[in-house]
């Protein structure tokens, strides 16, 4: 049994190239890009924050003025009620103290004509 002579040869088309280069996958943007990006995002955020603070101030001003415009109205209503109760209390005091000589109903304990809110409130 004899085998015919055959020279061993490279595969047709040749050998593939030797993989000697390092095969590292792409690791994302570089450090400077990340730093720049975050700086940009933060700058925009602080800009919005500043804008928002200015707007919040204006919103607060709006709220305060809406209340200021209503103060006279509410105070007038409250005053009428306070006056009514004050007069009722005075009448009551007059009735109770009618037998006491020299009693001045509704007189202040202070020697001062200036109005002060009553310390004792009967609703």
């Amino acid at each position, binding site marked *: 049994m004899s085998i015919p002579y055959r020279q061993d040869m490279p595969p047709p088309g040749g050998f593939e190239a030797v993989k000697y280069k390092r095969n590292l996958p792409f690791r994302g943007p570089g450090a400077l890009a990340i730093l720049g990006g975050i700086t940009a995002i933060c700058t925009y955020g602080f800009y919005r924050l500043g804008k*928002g603070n200015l707007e919040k101030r204006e919103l607060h001003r709006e709220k305060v003025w809406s209340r200021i*415009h209503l*103060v006279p109205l509410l*105070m007038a209503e409250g005053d009428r009620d306070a006056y009514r109760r004050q007069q009722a209390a005075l009448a009551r005091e007059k009735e109770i103290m009618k037998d006491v000589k020299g009693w001045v109903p509704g007189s202040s304990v202070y020697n001062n004509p200036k*109005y002060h809110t009553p310390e004792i409130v009967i609703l």
Partner: protein
Amino acid sequence: MSTFQKGTVPTQPYKEPTPLPDHVPKVEELGTTSAPLKSAAFFIGAYCKEYNEDFMLCKAENRDPGHCLKEGRRVTRCATDLINKMRENCLEQFDAHWNCLELNNQEYYRCRKPERTLNKCMFEKLGLTKVIPGTPAGQKPVHEIDSPIFKPIQK
């Protein structure tokens, strides 16, 4: 020493039943709740400016509740007049705005859309504008900014 006490505690607070003395002219109270008042606040401020300022100057003179009853009646009458006028002319927009305020914690910034229609109607029908005093010069007033930073999260 023991005093007589009722066996029950009243659930309602005691209210003085005595009416206002006869020599004080009667005026009907406004009776409007907080949301419509907040909705109408700037128009009340614009429409009743003189009466309001008169009343506050009077109060600055003397804090006695009996001192400014006359000015107070004028303030209430003016506000009642304005609310009636608003209801006659811009009822739909007014209702929309104060209902929105009622549902949004009474924050103006969450109700800009109904507010703008109300402001427009009030200007066209009654000639009243909403002006916020103290807005920095050359800056758009906060209720007219087109794309504000603070806005309702849920559209």
